[in-house]
């Protein structure tokens, strides 16, 4: 098989890179080992929430200038603050075109609310979710948190505990329907996806609207777990238009319904641009010739190679096996790329789970063009994008999705530039 570019990994970085290249007329293939971490999405995309020294960031673009000095190996530092800003302005447009409607500004973080009710600074949030312009400014003073009876992955009490710190009066309500009873036959399967399917049905959505309507008189707003609309995109809109009270979604524990929708929208967009998406396959080996990757081989396709002019490594971090930890090193399994890690394993982590863990910044070494280093020198036509990159703390610094989106767009530009020259 022959393509212009083969992207290994079908998560946020791989998909966005593929979409950008396909938009420019390239024939691309994405090889993905199962569904991606978007299925665990909070519904928000972080760009930069904190600097490595712990200082909160209000304006991510301004923060990047400080970051460049503090963490020169950070992907944003490699890309450069100026280019970062340009990609940060393009990214929401690409998401919008794909059908993922987001709000947010790269010059000013807003606040999202976690499944535990905590506020977190973020960049873009998918439509429908509860957000606040500033910390401590929830858009209501009296709210009802409506849960699905028996739903295991949403915790109104925790949320209320946090809200009450902001003097918000919280009430609880639950909804139960015959179809929900039906899925409760398997109590362990009272999960977001199964519940969302119930609310895809017109009758059940109407029953939910009626329930919300009954709560309207005593509250300023109603909070729902984000379990609305898995196989249809209009469910939340329909619900909102059939009640008079403001409705807000809060993220649930995984799987994330808006995350699933986002993943599917990206896949559809990529395919509609002529992209080939190979799901459930694993790249095993690569063949190189004169410092360039020539072809890669996968489990499903055996000796039929994926040949391309350019390759993008977007296999992610440890969870997706883009990086593998051995007792004394960090390995990138497909190309044997150079990796950044502390030589002594004792320095990899601390025993306090929520600490800044060094292993989170381990990853693939690249040059400033994000070309993968192997044996100390850059491979000509092999780029790295997304969570597998070295030098950043996605959770502590609130920059995981930003690194994926910006590095994906940057890499796509590098490939297109090389193509032109």
């Amino acid at each position, binding site marked *: 098989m022959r393509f212009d570019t083969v992207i290994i990994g079908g998560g946020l970085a791989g998909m966005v890179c593929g979409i950008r290249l396909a938009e420019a007329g390239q024939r691309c293939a994405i090889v993905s080992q*199962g569904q991606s971490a978007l299925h665990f999405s909070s519904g928000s995309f972080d760009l930069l929430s904190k600097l490595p020294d712990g200082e909160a960031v209000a304006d991510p673009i301004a923060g990047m200038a400080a970051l460049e000095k503090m963490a020169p190996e950070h992907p944003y530092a490699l890309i450069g603050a100026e280019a970062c800003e340009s990609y940060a302005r393009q990214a929401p447009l690409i998401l919008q075109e794909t059908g993922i409607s987001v709000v947010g500004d790269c010059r000013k973080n807003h606040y999202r609310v976690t499944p535990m009710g905590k506020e977190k600074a973020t960049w873009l949030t998918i439509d429908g979710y509860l957000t606040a312009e500033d910390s401590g400014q929830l858009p209501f003073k009296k709210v009802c948190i409506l849960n699905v009876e028996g739903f295991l992955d949403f915790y109104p009490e925790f949320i209320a505990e946090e809200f009450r710190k902001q003097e918000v009066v919280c009430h609880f309500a639950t909804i139960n329907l015959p179809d929900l009873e039906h899925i409760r036959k398997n109590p*362990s*399967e009272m999960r977001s996806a199964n519940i969302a399917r119930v609310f895809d049905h017109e009758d059940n959505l109407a029953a939910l609207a009626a329930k919300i309507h009954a709560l309207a008189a005593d509250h300023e707003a109603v909070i729902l777990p984000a379990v609305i609309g898995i196989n249809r995109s209009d469910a939340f809109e329909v619900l909102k238009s059939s009640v008079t009270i403001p409705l807000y979604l809060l993220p649930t524990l995984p*799987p994330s319904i808006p995350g699933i929708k986002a993943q599917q929208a990206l896949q559809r967009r990529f395919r509609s641009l002529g992209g080939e998406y190979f799901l*459930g396959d694993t790249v095993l080996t690569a063949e190189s010739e004169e410092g360039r990757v020539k072809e890669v081989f996968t489990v499903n396709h055996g000796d039929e190679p994926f040949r391309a002019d350019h390759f993008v490594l977007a296999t992610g971090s440890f969870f997706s096996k883009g990086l593998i930890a051995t007792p004394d090193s960090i390995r990138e399994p497909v190309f044997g790329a150079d990796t950044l890690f502390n030589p002594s394993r004792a320095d990899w982590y601390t025993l306090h789970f929520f600490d800044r863990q060094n292993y989170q910044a381990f990853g693939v070494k690249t040059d400033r063009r994000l070309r993968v280093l192997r044996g100390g020198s850059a491979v000509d036509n092999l780029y790295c994008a997304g969570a597998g990159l070295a030098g950043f703390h996605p959770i502590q610094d609130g920059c995981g999705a930003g690194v994926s989106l910006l590095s994906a767009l940057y890499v796509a530009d590098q490939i297109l530039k090389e193509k032109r020259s």
Partner: protein
Amino acid sequence: MNIQQNSVSENNFEQCIKCTICTVYCPVAAVNPNYPGPKQAGPDGERLRLKQPDFFDSALKYCLNCKRCEVACPSNVRIGDIIQMARIKYGPQKNTSLRNYVLANTDLVGSLATPFAPLVNTAVALKPVRFMMDKVMAIDHRRVFPKYSHGTFTSWYKRHAAAAQAAFPKQVSFFHGCYVNYNNPQLGKDLIRIMNALGYGVQLLEKEKCCGVALISNGLYKQAKRQAETNLGSIRKAVTNDGLDVITTSSTCTFTIRDEYPHLLNLQNDDVRDRIELATRYLYRLIQSGEVSWKFRDAQPLRVAYHTPCHMEKMGWAYYSIELLRMIPGVEVTVLDSQCCGIAGTYGFKKENYATSQAIGAPLFRQIEESGVDVVATDCETCKWQIEMSTSKPCLHPLSILASRLELTK
């Protein structure tokens, strides 16, 4: 208890982190609340079954073995295999259902039906007959039966094709499967015409039995294993003695021989697995290699929608069939969303599954109706039956479309 022996770690069982992504993509869990979903039926249930086989849940029979859970799993857990192995290890060990025996024994039923095909086809289309089959055998009366061919592919081949094949400079071996043999010999003939046009003679295996997929799904494991051994024996002869590749036209036969034999029936096939290929992939690779080329005589516009069968999705090979269709002048290909059509072999024939089967397929049927295409193409025979029964479109094998437009003169 020998923990090692009873563990299913070869299925990557311990890699499951309970993320539930598999259940999101399970076509059955989406429509049938009696099925606990792949996570619960697979790795979760397996933890319990390893302690005590009584934890086996008979609801595992609702799994249609589409393997879409495995395709979706980010951790490479062979969820579908865990479920099927649980059925084999802990499920009912004896088949007591006449219905399942009849549905599973495609060779036997096919051999009995083909000599009287006109009669059989008329009979199973009659309402009273279908009513009887529903009541007596629990085969749903709404299910439209595939037509049997009057005479088998193999008998046609021996009489009309075998002699001419030896003359070709290159040779390939063909595992025709039950569908070509008993229902649609024309597809086998189409394959022979295409291969002949490219300079390849087509040989049959010394001995071929049904690949066994229906036997496995209906609990007739011993018979499945016997037939698999026969098939592997013949395939080894073709590959090792005669140096031939073995090609098939059915995606499910291909998948079963390559992957279900070692995973579910514990029959090693490493020595020949890479030589068993889907015909569309084999053709794609031949054309790409530049060793052969073809000419088309017809470039009439034809709008084709390709449907990716579940086992094709699992193999990841839909690309080859789609690319092959795209090579045909005049053919405009739309790729349908990859989703289960609901029939899953014999599953959709069963009365207790009929509603589930049609509910699973509903979004696909809708997409087909809205696509505005002339014809649907797919590599799976049971998907074809389901699509033709449930939509207004005809459904053809990609090779039949190819053969109808290829310049066949030497």
